[in-house]
């Protein structure tokens, strides 16, 4: 029982990490654009 719950909770963690990764890609792109703008200035 505990093993099944453990594996399910692990699955949840991986899911939220992937979600976090998606948002992070957007944040990084924004940051890169900011850096590019700063360079042009």
């Amino acid at each position, binding site marked *: 029982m505990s093993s099944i719950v453990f594996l399910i*909770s692990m699955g949840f963690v991986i899911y939220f990490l992937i979600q976090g990764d998606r948002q992070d890609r957007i944040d990084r792109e924004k940051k890169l654009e900011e850096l590019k703008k700063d360079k042009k200035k």
Partner: protein
Amino acid sequence: MKDILFLFMFSPFFILAIRNPFLGLCGWVWTIMAIPKNMLWGFAADIRFTYFLAIATIIGMIIGRDPLRKVPWNSLFILMLLLLIQTALSNVFTLGTGEASWAVWSDFFKAILFSGLIIMLLTTKNRIETFLIALLLGIGFNILFEGLKFLVTGGSYKIIGIHNSMMTDNNLFALAVLMVIPLYLYMIPQVKHKFLKLGFTGLAGLSAVCVIGSFSRGGFIGLVIVSWQVFLKVKRKLVFIIFAVCFSSVAIYVASDRWSERIQTIENVKEDSSFLGRVTAWKLATLAAMDNPLLGTGQDSMQHEHVWQLYYFDINQFDFITPKNTPSDKPKAAHSIYFQVLGDAGFLGLILFLLILFNAFLLSRSLVKRANKEWIKHLAKAINTTLIVFMLSGGLLSMAYYDLLYALIAILISLKQLNIEKAGK
């Protein structure tokens, strides 16, 4: 079969860590808190998951280009590094065994390395909250099982701690759980997923159950402190009072007489043998620090019989709290973060440790007052409560090198940097 399935499911952590190192930190914190080793009995039980995740994270940092990465230099982090160096020097001249002292230092080194990486990588709201989700789901797994066992057995099951972790006994587990309650309360309104919101609400309630089920007197005092801090900070005070009264009634009904008897010993603490052992350990730590004010006796050495007996001869120099002491041949853990550091690293070590706690407390307070984003204020408030609990309950527990403390201080430093950035824009 289970080990193979686990390894298969764990492999994404490594891939994610190399691809995006901040996810390596999230996997790392989940591993520290969930302790997958306790779920495995086959070949996978011997694999050092945290070690390999740390390597994957560092490889990811070297090969990847992360525009959001920061430099970890900060006065608070430098204090942590100084304490790390100080404890290393203490261990060079340890009075105990080098093996035991360096084993404690090795864990402390990992905690400081982990904190440095947090300052470097957790540089956005999304990153910090993903990290907190991994942390809370990790420890939440242990809270869920221990809390349910206590409830299902009608309060007769005693929570004894989590093996292969820093929460190895009931007192340490109670403190670790108390430290995450404010984080659950911070995350509940922040997360968008309904299941996660519901899960964190349940886990926050079960955390309080776990503290009661640990039969830890220090934990019980900590629970009162957390409840008071939360009461001061919640907007709906009446709802909180109704919830607290209902919860306490159920807890008193479910908890056995054994629990009530245990908590009532707080009143006669000076006669209690467990407490006398603690006071003896505090006196010996003070004597050891007076003998070696700059370096102490080395980490963990006060728990060795020959070191304990060395200072026991002079114990009558002190009669603070109570003149009674425990027999000389029984070394005890310091049972106090302050006396633990005092014995391990001397007065110099204690000063560094207090400076870290004091500066972290001030930083959290200043962020609560001056942060220009609401979420930074709320998270700083939660960490501030955690620090208060650690500083007060930690006075009765040996957990000075607990990795979660240094991780949360590192998050405070990240919040400070984020706040400066936001103010500059």
